[in-house]
């Protein structure tokens, strides 16, 4: 394979190793979480984005620190890509006071408002209008930031999608709606739930650009999102980017995946986003296989340390129950 690597203006070649590490951090973090749920070491529920790391990392790579995101119930990857520490995230899943939400939010509600992560969301489609509102603040206060709104193929069938996209388009809000089309809304195959091939085509009804990218290709994703971010930052309004990808794991912790075939899973696995990224980077001479292995090992270690951090963190006292309801 010979490929001339094209990077968007917002991403420097020197940042690629860090992005590669983020991909592995997400993968190892989620595999660890999966393991802990299976063992009953953490409770509640969780939604994993294994196989979708490139859309989170590629899209957020284009952002500046001041930019904001809204995330989804499948949001661990977005959090890590936006700069959250795996320590704070693991501690949150363990319900500890050192977690991002002091143990009150759990997997579905991790937020890091200071870093511009306005939060995961347990309501499918809950982030559309919140992202529009955050973009409105940027526009009204002339803060210059853009908002990246992650959503899934399933959420694009919520009424909130239409209302928020219409509003964002008429007000030319600096927001990018990025659809991670992972082929399934829980058990519902996208082909049975949507009557068009590309969700990006829905952009036409709002008079905004819609673009499909290869969501398993971190470079294709960042290039696609780059244009949309520039457009938003220049005051030209929102876009839809649809990243076609695949949810390797089930919907949540208890999913026998009866609605799809193992063959289909294997086929997508051939295009594993981390493997694809490594191949391109080695071929382009950005790192060697040995360096790639080292980055992977570093990420693994960081996640393992986060487990220790979480286990050694204090549980909240019962006094905390009634705190933080009102400001």
């Amino acid at each position, binding site marked *: 394979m010979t490929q001339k690597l094209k990077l968007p203006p917002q991403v420097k070649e020197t940042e690629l190793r860090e992005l590669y590490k983020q991909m592995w951090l997400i993968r190892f973090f989620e595999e660890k979480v999966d393991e802990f749920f299976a063992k009953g070491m953490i409770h509640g529920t969780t939604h994993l984005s294994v196989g979708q790391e490139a859309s989170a990392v590629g899209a957020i790579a284009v952002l500046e620190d001041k930019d*904001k995101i*809204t995330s989804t119930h499948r949001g661990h990857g977005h959090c890590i890509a936006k700069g959250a520490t795996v320590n704070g995230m693991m501690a949150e899943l363990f319900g500890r006071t050192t*977690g*991002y*939400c*002091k*143990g*009150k*939010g759990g997997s579905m*509600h991790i*937020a890091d*408002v*200071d870093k511009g992560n*306005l*939060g995961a*969301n*347990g*309501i499918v489609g*809950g982030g*559309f*209008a*919140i*992202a*529009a*509102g*955050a*973009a*409105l*603040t*940027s526009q*009204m*206060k002339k803060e210059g930031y853009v908002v990246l709104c992650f959503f899934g193929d399933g959420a694009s069938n919520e*009424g*909130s999608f239409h*209302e*928020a996209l*219409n*509003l964002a388009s*008429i007000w030319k809000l600096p927001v990018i709606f990025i659809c991670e089309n992972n082929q399934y809304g829980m058990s519902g195959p996208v082909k049975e739930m949507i009557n068009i091939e590309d969700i990006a085509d829905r952009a036409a009804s709002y008079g905004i650009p819609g673009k499909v990218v290869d969501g398993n290709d971190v470079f294709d994703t960042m290039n696609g999102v780059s244009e949309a971010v520039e457009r938003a930052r220049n005051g030209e309004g929102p876009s839809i980017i649809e990243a076609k990808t695949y949810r390797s794991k089930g919907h949540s912790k208890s999913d026998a995946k009866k609605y799809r075939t193992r063959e289909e899973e294997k086929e997508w696995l051939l295009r594993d986003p981390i493997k694809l990224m490594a191949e391109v980077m080695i071929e382009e001479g950005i790192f060697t296989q040995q360096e790639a292995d080292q980055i992977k090992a570093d990420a693994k270690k960081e996640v393992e340390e986060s487990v220790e951090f979480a286990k050694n963190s204090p549980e909240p006292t019962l006094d905390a129950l009634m*705190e*933080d*309801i*009102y*400001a």
Partner: protein
Amino acid sequence: MRELTYLEAVREAMSQEMRENEDVFILGEDIGVYGGAFGVTRGMIEEFGPERIRNTPISEAAISGTAVGAALTGMRPILELQFSDFMTIAMDNMVNQAAKIRYMYGGKGKVPMVLRTPAGSGTGAAAQHSQSLEAWMAHIPGLKVVQPSTAYDAKGLLKAAIDDDNPVIFYEHKLCYRTKSDVPEEAYSIPLGKADIKKEGTDVTIVATAIMVHKSLEAAEELEKEGIHVEVIDPRTLVPLDIETIVQSVKKTGRLVVVHEAVKRGGFGGEIASLIAESEAFDYLDAPIKRLGGKAVPIPYNPELEKAAVPGVSDIVTAVKETLNRL
């Protein structure tokens, strides 16, 4: 002191806040040159311009979520919802997002927004434009609920609501809009969670909200002629609730009648009655607590049926006499 209508008082509170604080803006349907469904924002777009008096599409889900997102990122939005019945469409954003964000995020982030909305029957608008659904919102931890009955209260409570760092639902009863009272020209704040004794009395305590405050005062006047001295308390805010003022009053009178327009079944009156039954005032009760509320029926169109669906002055007079065994 000059008199203002309730409607003018609401408008003045918003205008004064907007002159003081650039972060305050209003969004809602037809609030621009049209002046809003009830004319509350009339003239405001001329003073503040279309950026801050933001006319929106008919998209209650989007505008409520946009208000949440804007509030979370540093603005202080006032959302005008044309009729409080449309809360059903904004419900997800108020209940699942606005009310919970701070807690879910472990005390990080705040949502300082006010949702103002006209409520209640008496205008012939029938079942989908006449409801009093405040008990729904009062049920949700994380929200504050305000129900002013007079122009003076409306102005002071609205300032407090806008200055509050939490999501506040501000119910404006349509039949109160044309009522007048003395209203100071300068801005002033009435703390949320402080009841007002609208009329002092010694024989029976009436706790009434919104338009029922006026009806209770009328009833009190009639009862006065028969030598019955009623104390009328307006809690003004349901959340937080100033139960102490009610407890003290019941300890003095030994009798309690609770009146609201909302359907009696599951209405907030049940909460007030229960709190009194659980309080030290219980031992002072000389008669069972009486609750008056709307009948469990959709508000009908025919004017006579409409009146019959909610408590009237004669119902209140009768209820007071019943508690005194003077029928």
